[in-house]
């Protein structure tokens, strides 16, 4: 299955850009399982497991132990700590 990855904030520099597509095997049952798979597949992917990153699925923040029902083309956003104001 092909999904879209988005990176917001400083994580962009570590991952080499703001967006990339990724092929994943099967249908990971939880966000944690998806992140573990991406960590193995992507250059610099280990960093995706950092606790301080927040993760959104199709623009909704999701807990890492949440169950997933991914579909082709879903967007997974990794968000560096926010620094507004």
């Amino acid at each position, binding site marked *: 299955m092909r999904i879209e990855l988005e990176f*917001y*904030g400083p994580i962009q520099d570590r991952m080499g850009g703001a967006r990339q597509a990724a092929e994943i095997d099967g249908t990971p049952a939880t966000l944690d399982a998806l992140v573990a798979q991406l960590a193995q597949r992507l250059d610099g992917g280990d960093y995706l497991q950092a606790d301080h990153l927040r993760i959104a699925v199709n623009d909704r923040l999701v807990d890492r132990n949440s169950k997933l029902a991914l579909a082709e083309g879903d967007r997974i956003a990794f968000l*560096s*700590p*926010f*620094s*507004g104001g």
Partner: protein
Amino acid sequence: MTDLRVYLTGERLDLPALNKALPDTETVGAVASFTGHVRGSDGLTALELTHHPAMTEPALRRIGEIALKRFALQALLIAHRHGRMAPGEPIVHIIAQAPQRRAALDAVAYTIDVLKTEAPFWKREWRSDNAIWIEPTITDQVEASQWLETET
């Protein structure tokens, strides 16, 4: 009757216009505001704020709705810039209206403290052609958590 106004814009904030945006009613006893500006220092040429195109405005609205209820406000305005700003330009403007001063003052403090760590914005400081990301500080996290830990 409560009134929440949220503005997220790539244009320079027009502070005089924003200050006139909320209705002036007889029951308002206190108006408090906060404006954050780009602090020019150490050769800073610009501050760039990026945001999430779909998540940032709802996050600001959610923070505002909680503040309205928590402090029993009559009105709250949150205006936030994104894009590239020069030193001195306003980044964020918050106005709270309440019957009493404490509620208005606390609501403004709450909104800016929580916004800093809970609204999806990211800052980069530019000095000539060099940019560095600005991470939230421990102080930012402590000031937000003092409110969030007591949120009901």
